[in-house]
């Protein structure tokens, strides 16, 4: 399993209490599972402490960049050692 770096950007750093983490994952789905299982509870706790009770996914509320490229624009996503995933929050406020 390749070792990759996952970087949380902007408000995620405050909410999840970390800037960056190294993970050993097989592929992008496993990277998602890693983020949700390790940081989902932290986010949920944060949301609850702020009075929001609806559970939300970190991954679904983010644009994910693989080495700077939005994975939504890639036909196939495969990971290799040293890859960098940026988890950037989606924002909608006006």
């Amino acid at each position, binding site marked *: 399993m390749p070792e990759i770096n996952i970087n949380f950007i902007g408000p995620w750093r405050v909410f999840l209490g970390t800037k960056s983490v190294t993970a050993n994952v097989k592929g992008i789905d496993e990277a998602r599972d890693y983020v949700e299982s390790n940081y989902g509870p932290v986010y949920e706790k944060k949301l609850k402490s702020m009075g929001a009770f609806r559970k939300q996914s970190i991954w679904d509320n983010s644009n994910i960049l693989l080495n700077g490229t939005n994975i939504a624009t890639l036909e196939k996503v495969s990971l290799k050692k040293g890859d960098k995933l940026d988890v950037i929050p989606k924002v909608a406020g*006006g």
Partner: protein
Amino acid sequence: MIDIKAVRALAAQAAMSPLQAEIYCLENGVVPARYLRNIGTVGIKGQIKLLSSTVAVCGVGGLGGTIVELLARQGVGRLIIIDKGRFVENNLNRQIMATEADLRRSKVKVAAQHVKKINSAISVTAVNRTIDRRNAGTLLKGADLVIDALDSFATRRIVADACRKLKIPFIHGAIAGLCGQLATVFPGDKGFESICGSPAGSDCGLESVTGNPPATPAVIAAWQVQEAVKIITGTGKPLRNRLIFIDFSEDTFREINL
């Protein structure tokens, strides 16, 4: 150079609107003093293009208020401003059009009056309605450019779809706490959907948790207006096929290809 009083006198004498009089002056190489500091950047032809343009601003909140103010000062000839909301107290921290005296008043009506105080030559169509799939095409028809100052993914998708059908460029902006983002989408450009997520997903982003402090919308709104001016005047290169994400907490900028 010509001052406001003389432009008004010319308009009255020649039975023109003040806007037509300003354009007439510029076409004859006479710059209304109010636009003097614009000319070095956009040129006389650019200022004429701005005065001859219609820009629709969807949402008159934190982003939209600043956008409307800057477009009026820039001298965009016609503004269509759309928002169903009324000012409430929690708008006062960031919505530049909101004052204590205007609480409970229609945002678009307040904004239209404010614009007239800044620049009486330009025309404002104030639409006190919520944008939906049925009315979006009608409300935005006639605009040369649409600026997104909305606060929900669902309405953004509606406006983006309408712009695609009407073949109007669309300037997206959004904020949350100390971060914000913007992108310009021309008809036919792909990838904007990935910004808004799927219809089944959440309708709001992290701003529901971070809130919105006053400086963030001011910066993003100003940048959106800069994009509008570039597109209308043909100056520079618009921000197409990429999303700029700004994190003011660490002063970092990221480009997301769309």
